[in-house]
């Protein structure tokens, strides 16, 4: 942790960055995002198992951008998000400093996106066995069972949009949900409105979601949203061999094609 604090203090003192977006202590044993702007407060920075929020969410928020050039303490998913955001022209290479604390206390500062790409190529991102078990359980269900499962899940959605606001890839100032000409998605949180919202959210993240899991963690009623994203991530990987967040320029699944994409359902 002190390697990180030393670096943060140095960056702030040298004026290389105006704010360090990192993790600090929260209520009880929770960690929370903190925005260190003075070198003296660098010691509030922590990095341990509790720090899982994808801080890249703050790179596209107006209030944070107005603070000036940031340094971001990046977990593995956050690194992928930085590349994906760069690929979608939301952040520029010189616009931020990326610090990735290693588990062993070491600290890596990535000078260029290419370094991040090389680092990510080698890094594995394991899937939580419980979540994998749930995925396998749902996949094994019959269509009708899956329908009851998902109707049960989405009927509990209260449309607080915490999943949208917590997702770094949902940076659109006016989301289609707020479009009322035409009213694509019903505003009320009845079952139909929730179904159409969750389908649209998953499709709008297809080929862009880096599977950081913040949406599932943010959902107050605990809907397993990661299942929807991972189905699409899996299909894109197996069908089109593309994966989000691995390269700074994006080959986005839905705006590229290959003449002989294979399918077995078109007559």
């Amino acid at each position, binding site marked *: 942790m002190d390697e990180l604090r030393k670096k943060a203090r140095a960056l702030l003192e040298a004026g290389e960055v105006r704010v360090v977006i990192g993790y600090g202590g929260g209520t009880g044993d929770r960690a929370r995002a903190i925005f260190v702007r003075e070198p003296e407060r660098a010691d509030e920075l922590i990095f341990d198992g509790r720090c899982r929020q994808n801080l890249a969410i703050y790179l596209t928020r107006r*209030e944070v951008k107005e603070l000036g050039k940031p340094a971001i303490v990046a977990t593995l998913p956050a690194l992928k998000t930085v590349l994906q955001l760069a690929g979608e022209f939301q952040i520029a290479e010189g616009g931020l400093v990326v610090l990735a604390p290693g588990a062993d206390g070491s600290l890596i500062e990535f000078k260029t996106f290419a370094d991040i790409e090389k680092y990510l190529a080698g890094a594995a991102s394991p899937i939580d066995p419980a979540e994998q078990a749930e995925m396998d359980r749902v996949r094994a269900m019959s269509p009708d069972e899956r329908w009851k499962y998902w109707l049960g899940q989405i009927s509990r959605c209260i449309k*607080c*949009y*915490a999943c949208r606001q917590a997702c770094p890839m949902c940076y659109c100032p006016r989301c289609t949900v707020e479009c009322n000409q035409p009213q694509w998605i*019903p505003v*009320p*949180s009845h079952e139909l409105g929730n179904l159409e919202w969750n389908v649209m959210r998953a499709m709008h993240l297809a080929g862009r979601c880096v599977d950081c899991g913040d949406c599932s963690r943010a959902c107050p009623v605990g809907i397993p949203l990661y299942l929807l994203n991972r189905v699409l991530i899996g299909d894109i990987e197996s069908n089109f061999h593309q994966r989000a967040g691995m390269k700074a320029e994006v080959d986005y699944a839905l705006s590229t094609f290959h003449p002989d994409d294979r399918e077995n359902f078109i007559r």
Partner: protein
Amino acid sequence: MEIERRLLKKEALAGLVEKINAAGRKVHAPVCEGARVEFAPIDSIAEADLGYVQTTQSAKNLLFPRVERILSFKRRGGAMETADPDLSALPETVVLGMHPCDAAAIGSLGAIFTWDTQDAFFKARLEKLTVVGLSCAAGDEYCFCASVGLGPGSTEGSDILLTRLASGDFLAEIVTAKGKALVELAPELFLPAPAGADKDSALARIEKSFTREEAGERAKARFDDDALWDGQALRCLGCGACAYVCPTCACFDIQDEGTTSRGVRLRCWDSCGFPAFTIHTSGHNPREEQGARWRQRLMHKFSYMPERQDVFGCVGCGRCSRACPVDMNIKEHLIDLLEAKS
């Protein structure tokens, strides 16, 4: 009305629920759902989990549903025919095991829904609701009812307030006429209260950090200190979780759904936390920054409501802090507000 004290044996609770069901009333109580506890209809007391600290969502849904049809319309010839839902068909409901903070919240909700326009829907539901509160035996670091003029044993808002005594039986304080009417359903279950029943020792210890009046004054005084509000709200994502789990938030949006020939008008929850909450047709947004929206949340509950409805909009239940994805702890921020140098 003078509060009567009675004793309700712990095994009598099951009988009470049966009696209520027999009387054709629905019973809602906290039910364990995986890692969370939520209010849900129950058929027998066995389903209820009365040892909980706090539910994720409040019971506000019983009075102010997430989605509510307030009218339907059909085109006939040139004109449009409308039809109101039959409010008399609403079921009589009893909510069992609601903590004192939630019970008090009903007052705050009522302050809004019966302020100038008498909301027929809210009043109809309130009228058919009987609240059997349950004092808090234990709070956690999020609870701060003591700091907003309430307490783990406060009877405000409850028709009957049960307090689990050391013996496991319940001290039942019959507060209102509705409470008395409920007792009439099963008078044999309510034994005379033992004289020395000590309620206070059964209550949780909730630390008082400030008074709601101080918080209101300080918020009003620091209204223009943008640095303070923006600083607090930097990590806030602008979602609606805090508003939707909050027992006192009463903002709603009206939506018409259907086609040019028939449809329904629905009322659904809304939140001042959303960026688009205050956007004007012109594109201007009076509350552009998240800091302004966060300030609005505190000001409304601690300054505007007391001023106009003479009731505070926060009952210290701590749900908003627990549900917040980025750990915006309202108690901590209020303390931070009070300590901020002027």
